[in-house]
């Protein structure tokens, strides 16, 4: 029996695949421009970042609107961030470097902007692995502690974005402003209640 909110969840789940489909269409039509591989990095990196920001937006939205049952959406968008970040990393390893591990090692070692990407990816990977309800139960209090690293991951992703930049500042500044708002909200709540814990409780769910 799908309730109305279940249906919305499914819509979101399917809609989140649209960027991937559009990317595949562009690849098949040779539509990525002169530097197709860079275009691929940018597309997938941007979507990993957008889903991460969406994930961070759920809690403030829930607090402001008092809607219930939004934790499922937080999980959904978080997993999609992981999905696009994984494609981004696979694209880097294989579409870009074609699995030439010597080159990959040198490239990562000499590119500080990638260190921040790697850190963000490792965190997102751990969060994705520990995302199932069973893992959450098993981890108890530690789950919350671990999942707070999403803040570190998003800051690292932001630095990763800024540091690979060659020209246009406008776009990353836009995402930086959003990040400041999203994290600022948590700081405000924390200052008010001095109880960070409240933020992570999926109110009224299960």
């Amino acid at each position, binding site marked *: 029996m799908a309730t109305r909110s279940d249906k919305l969840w499914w819509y979101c789940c399917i809609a989140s695949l649209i960027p991937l489909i559009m990317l595949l269409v562009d690849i098949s039509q040779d539509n990525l421009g002169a530097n197709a*591989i860079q275009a691929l990095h940018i597309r997938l990196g941007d979507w990993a970042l957008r889903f991460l920001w969406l994930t961070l937006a759920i809690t403030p939205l829930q607090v402001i609107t008092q809607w219930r049952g939004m934790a499922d959406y937080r999980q959904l968008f978080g997993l999609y961030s992981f999905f696009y970040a994984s494609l981004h990393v696979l694209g880097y390893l*294989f579409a870009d470097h074609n699995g*030439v591990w010597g*080159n990959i090692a040198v*490239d990562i070692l*000499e590119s500080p902007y990638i260190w921040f990407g790697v850190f963000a990816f490792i965190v997102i990977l751990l969060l994705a692995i520990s995302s199932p309800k069973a893992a959450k139960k098993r981890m108890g209090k530690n789950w919350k502690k671990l999942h707070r690293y999403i803040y570190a991951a998003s800051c690292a992703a932001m630095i990763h974005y800024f540091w690979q930049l*060659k*020209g246009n500042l406008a776009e990353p500044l836009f995402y930086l402003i959003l990040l400041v708002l999203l994290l600022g909200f948590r700081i405000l709540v924390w200052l008010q209640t001095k109880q960070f814990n409240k933020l992570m409780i999926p109110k009224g769910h299960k």
Partner: protein
Amino acid sequence: MLIKPKAAISSAEITDEQHFKQRRSLIKALLASGASGVLPVAAANAGQTPPLSATPAELVQSYNNYYEFAFDKESVRDLAQALPTDQWSLEIGGEVEKPGKFYLEDILRQQPLEERLYRFRCVEAWSMVVPWLGFPLQRLLAQVKPLSSAKFVKFTSVYQPEFMPNQERGLMLAWPYVEALRIDEAMHPLTILATGMYGNHLPKQNGAPLRLVVPWKYGFKSIKAIVKIELQSKPPVTTWNKSAPHEYGFYANVNPDVSHPRWSQATERPLGSALFTARRNTELFNGYAEQVASLYTNMDLRHFF
């Protein structure tokens, strides 16, 4: 008119002999096998430097770093078309015997154009191979007779804020764009002033009507739309070096061992390469070490990056 019959010197003449022979034997092998398209693959598999083949013109002319117009590479082509490039004149001055202002058309009447097929390596780790049409800078400099006090050559790009949006807004860099070479670099036979590419006029997005091409340095040294050349005794302040001195040095010689502070320079992505192909290993001096390394003997390339 501007463009004269091309190729007084064939690109073979500026390719060193070993590569040339290698290319000849590859071409023979190709003819024997009767299959086109085998060539680059065969060369790559043999672990040798494949012979240069030009990047498709469409890519070179649609992916342009030209910050006066835009910070992204895709919108430059459209925006650049507004720049007026007729009746172009070039001022040459400073430490020379015969300074003056010259119409480009008059300069070109005296300079036979040559085709030069050069690798071009951007500091952002992408690269291309371009058949330029141009003439050696040394030939133009010889005409104005540099004084012995001339140690550096400073180049200045056009300042046209009505047509260059980021000059109008005063964004990012100190406009106009300035670049410079040491006099021996400027006099090197590989250093050319280009007025065309692919056997045709230089497109505006690629720096029409007159740009510098220094194939062993990162692309930002190869300044576009030049209006002024000054010979100086002191090192000129150049645009990127001034804007981010720890990221962009005065020399900016292509060097896989000296990484940019934020990214590696060990490998590069040739424009037009397909997904799932390995990157190209970047070569010291972009593959022109044999011709130019002697300019930098006893210099610490890490320090003078």
